[in-house]
């Protein structure tokens, strides 16, 4: 029993949301709302409400990056200053806190930004190998819904999509 992936293309969000609503209402078997992957040319906030709460964990990493940055900044700067052979003091202490705060602040942002971006790339699955199930229309104006189903339900789901204003349906074997 092999599994198939289906991509159905819709004209606009309204059509796509109708389909989602119908899937939620169990009008077609073999597809759960959690399996739905919705592709769109723009970001639509309603997608989240329609598909249910899905977690976004980037902020935790950002926080971790920021905390690391500021701690690292403090220890790095003060230990470099303390171990420096000569002390360019100009009447100032060896470890001048106010000036170090400036750099700690910069390091906070630096590490926070980089962790955010790196985590974004990983968490959103960018740069990973993907299936070929894709339509170029997705970057123009059409909305795609991807579902993964068993072979047995292939036809029924296809029909379901067709009946619900799908413009085009593509499929691939997993």
């Amino acid at each position, binding site marked *: 029993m092999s599994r198939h992936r289906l991509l159905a293309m819709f004209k606009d969000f309204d059509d796509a949301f109708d389909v989602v609503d119908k899937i939620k209402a169990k009008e077609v078997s073999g597809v759960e709302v959690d399996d739905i992957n919705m592709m769109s040319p723009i970001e639509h906030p309603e997608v989240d409400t329609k598909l249910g709460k899905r977690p976004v964990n980037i902020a935790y990493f950002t926080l971790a990056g920021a905390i690391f940055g500021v701690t690292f900044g403090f*220890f790095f700067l*003060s*230990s*470099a*200053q*303390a*171990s*420096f052979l*000569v*002390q*360019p*003091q*100009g*009447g*100032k*202490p*060896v*470890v*001048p*806190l106010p*000036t170090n705060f400036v750099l700690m602040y910069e390091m906070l942002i630096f590490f926070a930004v980089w962790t955010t971006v790196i985590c974004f790339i990983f968490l959103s699955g960018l740069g990973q190998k993907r299936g070929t199930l894709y339509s170029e229309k997705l970057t123009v104006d059409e909305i795609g819904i991807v579902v993964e189903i068993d072979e047995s339900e292939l036809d029924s789901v296809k029909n379901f999509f067709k009946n619900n204003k799908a413009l085009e349906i593509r499929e691939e074997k997993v």
Partner: protein
Amino acid sequence: MSFKNILENFSYYRRDAEDGGHHEYDHRFGMTIDLDICTGCNSCSTACYAENNLAVVGKERFEKGQAMHWMRVERYWDNIEGDYAEEGAKFLPMLCQNCGAATCEPVCPVAATYHTPDGLNAQVYNRCIGSRYCSNNCPFRVRYFNFWSYYEDSWPEPLNMQLNPDLSVRDKGVMEKCTFCIQRIRTAKDKAQREERVMADGDVVTACAQACPTGAIVFGDTMDPDSRVSKLWEKHQVHRGPFLQKKDKTNEEIRGYRIFDELNVDPSILYLERVRDTEV
């Protein structure tokens, strides 16, 4: 560079000038310049050129303001009223003040300028990357930058044989300034160490002080209470420390002052006021 070190000695590393800084000075070299007997003859400046491998920049570069005189004699006319400069000119030998709380030090990005245990404001030429921030931040404007490779035409053969091998010739792109003749200090220290004694007053004298025909410049260690310099500082009631001097002005003979004392930079050079007989 261990955390332990930082944590254990944190309060020590946090001491600033008000708490006496973290430096424990071996010496604190200082100078006194008596403006009353300074005649403005330029002898000091010449001696400095001879001692410190200072480049002759030539007319065009001098015109641009790129001359390299570590020790310059400033001349002021302050007679705005009256037809004649009856009071004469005012001369001021100006050199690096080797400030105790030097404003040039904290701004150098690579720490090419810092304080030595001798209380000198050092400039390490080979560390300098030429950001020129130090000079911008110097109220006295006594730091000189090598805007060109002056060595290329300042010492045509055989003039280069005069170059003092005890200090380097500076190439373009580095800042330089008066060092209180560090090479002489170094030699004197070595000599004292060789003779197994402490450095005495008069062991080291800067080129300018040695040449000064009127003896207006006195150089020495202000930490040594017996040195001529510290006696002069004492006499004129000026003390080391970055803050404005409070003088007990019962005696007007107290002529000592430090330029830009109000900036709290703690200069190492004590000037004695010029005296003019206004009765005549």
